[in-house]
């Protein structure tokens, strides 16, 4: 996993609430067996007409935001399906940070596993950022994971909460399985005892 420390980038405004993972990456792209190459399909049905023409009004197609690595969205971002493909698509497209008032639980964990930083700000702060990104040309934000802050060059400053352990993993780019296996001895002992509980056996 790629490490994350600080990022300064254009901010792309997606002023919709309850954006579900079916929109982030529609099902027809879940048939692939690879982990990469999903960026082209990000928000596919919002980006293209059924005939395959780009939808000019959709923010991902707006040249003003080309190269943005920070996405700002409404509450309950990435609700619905557990598909990690949503995180893969966002990351493959180039996003390293999503800022929203709230995120759905499963996505929260999927994003972390793919080095995407999720910054929860208040509804009012997000509204400000959405408005700035829509109205100020070349509007950039700086996200510092170390400091847990989102700032712009005009005096906006907000801080966000991160679980200390998640922060550490993101900063170091750590692999979760390796981390769990540090507890192999405890796991062996637990499992031997747990297996005796016949009523919890799978088969």
């Amino acid at each position, binding site marked *: 996993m790629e490490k994350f420390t600080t990022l300064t980038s254009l901010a792309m405004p997606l002023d919709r609430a309850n954006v579900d993972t079916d929109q982030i990456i*529609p099902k027809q792209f879940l*048939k692939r067996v690879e982990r990469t190459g999903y960026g082209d399909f990000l928000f596919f*049905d919002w980006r293209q007409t059924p005939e395959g023409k780009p939808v000019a009004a959709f923010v991902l197609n707006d040249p003003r935001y080309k190269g943005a690595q920070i996405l700002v969205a409404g509450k309950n971002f990435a609700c619905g399906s557990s598909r990690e493909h949503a995180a893969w698509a966002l990351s493959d497209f180039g996003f390293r940070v999503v800022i929203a008032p709230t995120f759905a639980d499963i996505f929260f*964990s999927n994003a972390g596993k793919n080095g995407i930083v999720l910054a929860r700000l208040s509804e009012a702060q997000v509204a400000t950022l959405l408005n700035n990104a829509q109205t100020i040309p070349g509007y950039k934000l700086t996200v510092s994971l170390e400091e847990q802050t989102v700032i712009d060059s005009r005096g906006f400053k907000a801080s966000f909460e991160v679980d200390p352990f998640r922060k550490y993993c993101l900063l170091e780019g750590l692999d979760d399985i390796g981390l769990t*296996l540090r507890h192999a001895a405890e796991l062996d002992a637990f499992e031997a005892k747990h297996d005796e509980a*016949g*009523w*919890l056996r*799978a088969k």
Partner: protein
Amino acid sequence: MSSEPKTLFEKVWEQHVVVEPKGEPTVLYIDLQLLHEVTSPQAFEGLRLAGRKVRRPDRSVATVDHNIPTTLEGRLHIVDQIAAKQMTALRKNCADFGIELFDVNSPDQGVVHVVGPELGFTKPGMTIVCGDSHTSTHGAFGALAFGIGTSEVEHVLATQTLPQSTPKTFRISVEGELQHGVTAKDIILAIIGKIGTDGATGCVIEYAGSAIRSLSMEGRMTVCNMSIEAGARAGMIAPDATTFAYLKGRRHSPKGAEWEQAVAEWSKLTTDPGAKFDRELVIDGSTLEPYVSWGTSPGMVAPITAKVPDPAAAATEIERNGFKRALEYMGLKAGTPLEEVSIDRVFIGSCTNGRIEDMRAAARVARGYKVSTHVNAMVVPGSHAVKEQAEAEGLDRIFREAGFEWREPGCSMCLAMNPDVLAPGERCASTSNRNFEGRQGRDSRTHLVSPEMAAAAAIAGHFVDIRTWKVNELATPEVKA
């Protein structure tokens, strides 16, 4: 053991804590992982790349469901090569790593959340995961069951554990007697409508109260299934006599003396009097009605007697825009009575409502009627076992005679990854769980309802209040309800 009163969730959680490293998430032991073709290939690939093995192949089981065609011909010759590749990958992965698979031709194949309980894999007190958000279904047995992403699937394959931070607890009690025609589906749609699609984010819900207790296991699974639609991590219902009666004699249920011991253990899995929840909500079940979703999020629901709501009523600007966008997408005008909304398609099936009881309920409504001439309706049993049972009871005949298509088991039009897809603009009464934009095909319009409401809509050609439906009783009853 401390004498502090505990919730059902806390009891199950505590039995699975491997280690609680300071400043880190708890390492939680996972009793059972369910696998399917769509969210597992990258996980197995990850294992291979890291040279890791599956720690406990006996604690995983796999089936094909998401991609699979639901016609016999379609299953013999899968034309979608990418989908076929995914199924081949699962076959190879299960063979290489020693995991039991219910393949296309297996009599045990079906939707993962239908098969797990049916075969007795799902048991009270277990921790269960699957790379699928509707894993919450299994909470109906008093298991802690939740959906995970593919990296987590890999994590569980490799370690049989997951690092987890402790969720909050939320008890929703539905008390009183449900009106005739109001089902488990209506309970959960009402709850989501009330608390919103992020109303239970970060929480494990325990469903309690007399209306929940009176539900069958099928009904309880329907309720727990859609917990995720309220944003919850999981939904749980304490096991009781109904649970044990369902489990007894299933293939992987304990037998003999082990059964007695298991029931004794499972019986302890109730919330102690006085145990504290982070949140509580009490709903008067007798006031619930049959519901229909009108928008593009499962929280956008209204009673069948209501009208399509006006966006002006929304609380915030972003919500108002969401409402407007939803109505535009759904091709609906504010103020239209829901009963006047006419439909093109009907889908009865999915892990929400594809079980035998759902088939019986829909057949009871359909019996002796004909599907409206402008409607195409299909019934897709959740598993082979459901299909066989339904056929043994003659339900398939009732459906076919009424003009419904009777299909092979799979996820089908719940997410339309297989050939069962709505055409753009088509409006569907669906017993599934999600009405997101494009869920059942690009520009498809989904309305979530109970199986009874879906069957009635198929016949009437528009939504109807099931409470006013006239059931055709048979002189010699062929269907045991």
